[in-house]
């Protein structure tokens, strides 16, 4: 028995690694190892007031901070019977669009692209791909700006609260971001051209199931109360446990997710697979141009899906910002009860994020958070295993195999801090 190992997976968020266990030429197992330390966040928020929970849970992850905030708000508002005013809902859409642009530009260009082009980092690409690196930084900076304008600051902003916002963004700033978003669309289109021109190896290809939220009004979107599955089913997000059926694997501390005994994937590619036909504008044209049934098999195409999604987000920011600007500031909605339960489901850039809360006497009695990366772990490993088997059979070198596996893990845009906010995983 021999093992190939990458101890510290670079260019991902958090501390993870990959272990391939070989028996001669046969691949016994491929695992994504998570070395990130446990934090026990869900046990710490028990007994807290909902407003305090909202300060703590976004700290699970810096990159999806607003997704955590919004999923928690949705779950808590349901539990407490809060009906947020229209302006709050639209401002929340805007903050999610900002986070999407920020995270997708960071992941596609700075974390994933260097592999495809053969560089150790985006900064190392400066001499040869200076325009693209600068384009990425422009997009990221703008995404951050939208997050700061809506949430109070770039990371872990506290402005979104139950029932509304501490302070709504000003008209002048909203008008500015509408203009800037339109200016940046060509940058995102260039990202689609670039990711559309890359070679995506066929080694990891195998069919899987995809899940995303079902955004309301038959639109493409980043939050919803029901979940779409690529097999055609639709499930209320309150039944999230049936979809994720978390289980404890005897040899690991990570809770794993399967759907009908199959692995499934969440993320931008799942959103495109389930809601891509609802796109409009240039994003629609780009989707039509690039989408194929390979998307159902090849996780590397998540990079391309994220690039198309950036176009969609930038095309929608102006109308959403203008809508926010046109409305008067409403009063913050208050809780109508002190006991209840509710689940919030949103699309973090890397897939569906669930926050479920049970409230008793105004305090949190139970919190259950299921992150996208935790849902993706089994699917990442399934694709890595197939890829390793095929490459070994083709006589590829160990280094080449490990590099290909790294690219697969990275393509899911894993957030290891998120996946392990309560768990720690290590395979024997």
């Amino acid at each position, binding site marked *: 028995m021999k093992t190939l190992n990458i101890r*510290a*997976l*670079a*260019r*991902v*968020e*958090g*501390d993870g690694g990959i272990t391939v266990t070989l028996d001669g030429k046969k691949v016994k197992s491929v695992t994504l190892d998570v*070395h*990130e*330390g*446990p*934090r*026990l*966040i869900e*046990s*710490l928020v028990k007994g*807290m*007031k909902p407003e*305090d929970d909202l*300060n*703590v849970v976004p*700290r699970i*992850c*810096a*990159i999806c*901070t607003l997704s955590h905030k919004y999923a928690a708000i949705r779950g808590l508002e349901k539990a407490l019977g809060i009906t947020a005013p229209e302006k709050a809902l639209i401002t929340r859409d805007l903050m999610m669009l900002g986070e999407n642009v920020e995270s997708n530009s*960071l992941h596609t260009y*700075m974390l994933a692209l*260097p592999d495809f082009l053969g560089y*150790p*980092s*985006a*900064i*190392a690409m*400066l001499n040869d791909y200076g325009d693209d*690196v600068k384009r990425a*930084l422009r997009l990221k*900076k703008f995404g*951050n700006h939208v997050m700061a304008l809506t949430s*109070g*600051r*770039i*990371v*872990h902003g*506290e*402005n979104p*609260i139950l029932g509304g*916002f*501490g*302070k709504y963004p000003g008209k002048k700033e909203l008008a500015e971001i509408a203009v800037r978003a339109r200016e940046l669309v060509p940058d995102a289109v260039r990202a689609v051209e670039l990711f559309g021109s890359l070679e995506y190896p066929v080694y990891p290809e195998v069919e899987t199931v995809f899940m995303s939220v079902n955004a309301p009004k038959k639109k493409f979107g980043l939050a919803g109360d029901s979940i779409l599955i690529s097999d055609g089913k639709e499930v209320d997000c309150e039944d999230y446990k049936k979809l994720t059926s978390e289980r*404890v694997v005897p*040899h690991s*501390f990570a809770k794993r997710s399967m759907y009908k005994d199959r692995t499934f994937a969440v993320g931008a590619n799942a959103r495109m697979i389930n809601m891509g036909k609802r796109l409009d504008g240039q994003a629609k044209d780009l989707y039509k141009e690039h989408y194929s049934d390979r998307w159902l098999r090849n996780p590397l195409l998540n990079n391309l899906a994220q690039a198309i999604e950036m176009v969609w987000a930038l095309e929608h920011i102006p109308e959403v910002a203008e809508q926010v600007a046109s409305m008067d500031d409403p009063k913050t909605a208050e809780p109508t009860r002190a006991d209840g339960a509710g689940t919030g489901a949103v699309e973090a850039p890397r897939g569906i994020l669930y926050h479920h809360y049970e409230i008793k006497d105004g305090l949190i009695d139970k919190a259950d958070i299921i992150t996208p990366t935790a849902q993706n772990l089994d699917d990442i490993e399934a694709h890595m295993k197939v890829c390793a088997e095929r490459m070994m059979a083709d006589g590829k070198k160990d280094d080449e195999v490990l590099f290909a596996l790294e690219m697969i893990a990275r393509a899911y845009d894993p957030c290891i*801090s998120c996946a392990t906010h*309560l*768990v*720690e995983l*290590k395979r*024997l």
Partner: protein
Amino acid sequence: MTKSSPKIGIYGFTGCAGDQLMILNCEDQLVDLFGAVEIRSFVMAKSDNHEGEMDVAFVEGSISTEAQLEHLKDIRKRAKVLVAIGTCACWGGPQAMKLDDGKYDERYKSVYGNAKITVSKAFEAQPVDAFVPVELKIPGCPIDKGEFLRSVSKVVAGRHPYLYPFPVCNECKWKENECILTAGKFCAGPLTKAGCGAICPSHNLPCVGCWGPTDDLNVGAEYNLLKEKGYNPEEILQKIRKFGGAGVVKLVKDLEKPKEAKK
């Protein structure tokens, strides 16, 4: 980058990676930063990492496993200066909000059950300076871009950046915000180190304390003030502990003592 460029390493432990992300969020300065210093190790941003001697190590996150502790000690050995960045590295972060309450094992069990540990042993998260000497703490949840960049330029030149020694209330006053505490609402401002620019009070929201404890902390005064305003003592302590971690643990225990004595 020249041969004499200062060598730095950027490392992350238990936390949200937000402080490393804030470094990547310095979009306008990132190219210059990578040019001015030699970044030997930054696993989150690049794959060609070299683990050797360095001038300055920036460490994010709290320490919560034996393996992390070994890694931290190794970084300390190789670094002339070690800078803790972010509230987790400086004070333990939210995962240290119940530090030393004696119930860690209970919480751990509630999450993992009786599952057998096959990996590095986990323990209650603690700040970096609980284990190794730290030359400088740059707090924040996450750190502020400006404060970080100013500090880097000073530290790599061998100088002290001298962060604000006072609470965020000063920054709040500079912005001419109305005092939230005076209005009778809980605000962690008087206990919290300045540096963020009083963002939350500028959005009509109370300070949550995410920058961690300020210098010359007076927890007792805040506690008594809030009690007078009718707050439940347990809730006050819970809110103080939320981001205070190791910086308030002893002070809070001292406040709890008389309460326990009454029982």
